[in-house]
């Protein structure tokens, strides 16, 4: 397998982008990446998108979106893993290049959520339809149960959850592409309306439109496109049981653990080596569970991390400097790519006010459903 | 002799007080409670209907009968509020209870006496020898129109009776049905609430049919009111059953156990059947029980039953009616009640 580098990135703003369609979002992000690399061709395109079919009634995204950027003819396909669709798109594109099948691959993620679909119902299809959604549980409801189990087992409090949102908004306020560029106070978070007890509105990532794209090529060709390539040290996937009922411990995200372990092993690194990370904070509790599962904090102590500043900018292991899903936004399929882009920019020293000093090794973790799938990328400054 | 080999009942846990409904419409709560002898009624949850109520009652009946569900050869559900206009309530029940597929199923309707209709036919099939066991169920979640007298009483609940020839808990001694064409209360297809003839529903309807059926049954069986330990009549409100009992020569004491309506309301096809279940919950062996239903349209089914020595040891195998009426329950506001009874208009 060849070494693979990310050589360029492109991303729309995330938010309620009424004026832009699904294909328009993709085009904006893809063209920005192609332009940054001054690339005029592609060998393959992989698009991650949770459900253009349910959100806007459109399937067959591979050829549709290749065509949209004037690349009809190129090998193009769509991959899906609910909220981890972006991460698995990156994984698929990585394999395209690592295997020698492609020399220049575009990994993109896109989601158009505000065109009038019943968002709650569509997102619930990431859960087990027969055993969970049919019974009336919602997506926030599943994470609320995870939160309750975590509170019972590890003493996590509602305030601990709120601190995650406060931290991520503070970061997001520094991100020009974030959906919410304002800070929130602890009181605002604790006082926001209940969505599924104990999760409140401000514990939950928003409904967003957006797209993100990165260009991959073999490491030994990277200088054609950029003088600061970033190497993909590991790209690892794992799954867990689909239904929350079948998890050994509902407060432990074992798919995240597994994908993290596989990535660390491939890269030959350990959690303390990671200097900056993007993790999947679809709900505040998810960030706490993910940093525990990834070994970025000691076991069972995830609840303290945001409050003590451990995972804030300037802390020992900054997590979600982009603002996370909470503040940056969560156009479902785009998130996995956007996370990789944040780490990409951090490692190239291009993160502006969000810059983590001298970051050399970063991690991006993207998760689907209530933790049934997880994909971890470890990136390194070259 | 054929008779009841298992019985069960179900009353939902939600309630609304008569005075809460009275307040809603600016009526005097005390006058309502005194005039109708109603305190409160049961309210079905948004997830309850005639099918779910029937399943709960039938499960209890099977527990008491101690027979394998597959031995039931016929299932009849009588109701005024079958969930589908076309598709029987009984088919969901036979799948839920493991009675399917070797069984005959039919739904019955005859206003409030659809339950005893189902019981009459189930009994007849067993007596004919066509099946070994047959189940008759009366269950309803019928509605009363807002600001109508019936809104105080229309409630939800049901009872199930399994008939057979072996290990009988109460033998059926005699039956009598009295029927005529009397338009006292009806509902046309597509209408949400039923309509009724006001005071016409009393003497020419309720009283005439219950009295005629009961007197004919007594005559046919050679029995008199004093021979019975318990009597149950259809209960559209608290007053009517007491009045008809008195005019037929029964005492308050004979009526007391089956007179559930003050705290249950009128469960329509479930009304007298649930009263019968409440009586079976406490009756001693060798006692005579009389039950006469009334269904608008109109008709009455009357049954005389005699309990056996097997009853006391079986009745503890499922919840009693009183434990459901007096047990854990939630009182609703009128707004919650309107939401549960789907009286609030929403878009599709």
């Amino acid at each position, binding site marked *: 397998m060849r070494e693979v580098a990310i050589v360029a990135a492109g991303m729309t703003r995330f938010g309620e982008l009424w004026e832009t369609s699904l294909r328009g979002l993709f085009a904006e992000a893809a063209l920005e990446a192609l332009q940054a690399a001054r690339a005029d061709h592609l060998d393959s395109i992989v698009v991650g998108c949770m459900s253009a079919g349910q959100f806007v009634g459109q399937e067959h995204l591979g050829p549709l979106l290749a065509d949209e950027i004037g690349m009809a003819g190129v090998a193009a396909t769509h991959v899906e893993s609910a909220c981890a669709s972006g991460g698995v798109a990156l994984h698929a594109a990585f394999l395209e290049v690592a295997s020698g099948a492609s020399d220049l691959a575009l990994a993109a993620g896109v989601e158009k959520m505000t065109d009038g679909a019943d968002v709650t119902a569509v997102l619930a299809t990431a859960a087990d339809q027969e055993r969970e959604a049919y019974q009336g549980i919602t997506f926030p409801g599943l994470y609320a149960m995870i939160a*309750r189990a975590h509170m019972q087992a590890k003493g996590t409090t509602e305030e601990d959850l709120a601190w995650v949102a406060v931290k991520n908004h503070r970061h997001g306020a520094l991100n020009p592409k974030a959906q919410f560029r304002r800070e929130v106070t602890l009181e605002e978070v604790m006082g926001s309306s209940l969505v599924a007890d104990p999760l409140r509105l401000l514990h939950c990532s928003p409904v967003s439109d957006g797209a993100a794209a990165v260009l991959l090529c073999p490491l030994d060709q990277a200088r054609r496109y950029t003088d600061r390539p970033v190497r993909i040290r590991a790209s690892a996937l794992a799954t867990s049981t689909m*239904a929350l009922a079948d998890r050994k411990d509902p407060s432990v995200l074992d798919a995240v653990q597994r994908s993290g372990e596989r990535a660390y092993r491939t890269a030959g690194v350990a959690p303390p080596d990671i200097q900056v990370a993007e993790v999947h904070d679809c709900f505040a509790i998810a960030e706490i569970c993910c940093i525990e599962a990834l070994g970025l904090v000691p076991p069972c102590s995830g609840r303290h991390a945001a409050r003590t500043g451990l995972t804030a900018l300037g802390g020992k292991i900054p997590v979600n400097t982009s603002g996370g899903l909470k503040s940056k936004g969560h156009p479902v399929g785009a998130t996995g790519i956007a996370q990789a882009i944040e780490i990409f920019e951090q490692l190239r020293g291009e993160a502006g006010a969000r810059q983590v000093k001298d970051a050399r090794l970063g991690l991006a973790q993207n998760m689907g459903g209530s933790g049934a799938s997880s994909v971890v990328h470890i990136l390194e400054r070259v | 002799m054929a008779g009841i080999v298992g019985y069960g009942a179900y009353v939902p846990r939600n309630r609304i007080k008569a005075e809460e409904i009275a307040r809603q419409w600016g009526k005097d709560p005390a006058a309502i409670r005194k005039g109708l002898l109603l305190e409160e009624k049961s309210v079905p949850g948004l997830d309850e209907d005639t099918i779910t109520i029937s399943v709960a009652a039938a499960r209890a009946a099977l527990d008491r009968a101690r027979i394998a569900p597959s031995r039931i050869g016929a299932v009849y559900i009588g109701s005024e509020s079958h969930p589908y206009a076309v598709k029987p309530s009984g088919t969901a029940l036979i799948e839920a209870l493991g009675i399917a597929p070797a069984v005959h199923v039919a739904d019955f309707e005859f206003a409030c006496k659809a339950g005893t209709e189902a019981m009459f036919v189930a009994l007849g099939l067993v007596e004919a020898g066509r099946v070994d066991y047959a189940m008759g169920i009366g269950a309803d979640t019928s509605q009363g129109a807002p600001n109508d007298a019936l809104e105080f009483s229309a409630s939800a609940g049901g009872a199930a009776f399994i008939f057979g020839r072996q290990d009988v808990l109460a033998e059926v001694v005699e039956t009598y049905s009295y029927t005529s064409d009397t338009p006292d209360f009806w509902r046309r297809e597509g209408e949400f609430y039923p309509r009724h003839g006001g005071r016409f529903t009393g003497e020419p309807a309720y009283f005439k049919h219950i009295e005629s059926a009961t007197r004919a049954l007594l005559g046919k069986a050679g029995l008199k009111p004093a021979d019975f330990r318990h009597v149950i009549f259809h209960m559209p409100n608290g007053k009517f059953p007491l009045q008809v009992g008195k005019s037929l020569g029964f005492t308050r004491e004979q009526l007391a156990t089956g007179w559930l309506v003050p705290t249950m309301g009128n469960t329509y096809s479930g009304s007298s059947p649930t009263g019968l279940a409440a009586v079976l919950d406490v009756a001693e062996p060798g006692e005579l029980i009389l039950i006469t239903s009334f269904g608008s349209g109109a008709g009455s089914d009357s049954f005389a039953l005699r309990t056996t020595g097997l009853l006391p040891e079986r009745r503890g195998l499922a919840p009693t009616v009183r434990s459901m009426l007096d047990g854990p329950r939630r009182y609703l506001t009128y707004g919650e009640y309107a939401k549960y009874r789907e009286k609030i208009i929403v878009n599709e």
Partner: protein
Amino acid sequence: MPSPRYWREIPTRYRLEAARCTGCGKVAFPARPVCPECRGREWERIHLSWRGKVVTSTVVQVPPSEFQMEAPYAVALVETPEGARLMTQVVDCEPSSVQPGMEVSLVFRRLRKEGRGGILCYGYKAVPAA
């Protein structure tokens, strides 16, 4: 929900039909082809008891459109005596009263109506044990 799928699911929804792996004893609800514990393929058909205990729960305040009128409602992960875990609403009580450890009975209820003219879908829910 389309009729064929609803009908296929009746044994699970109406009768709590489950399967016990003959190799390692793991109970799968609903039944499935491969045992998640030992990857075995031999099963014994069982029915779950109509009772259990709450493992974790939440109260859904923002419901999907089919459950609009029922919100807020409690949903819980319930474990039956056979060791099966299932996701179910807990009704006939104040939603906030549902807590881990609570004993529940499982009952037959109508889970949803498919609009004004579609089929009615039945299945199991939990109520606090009497």
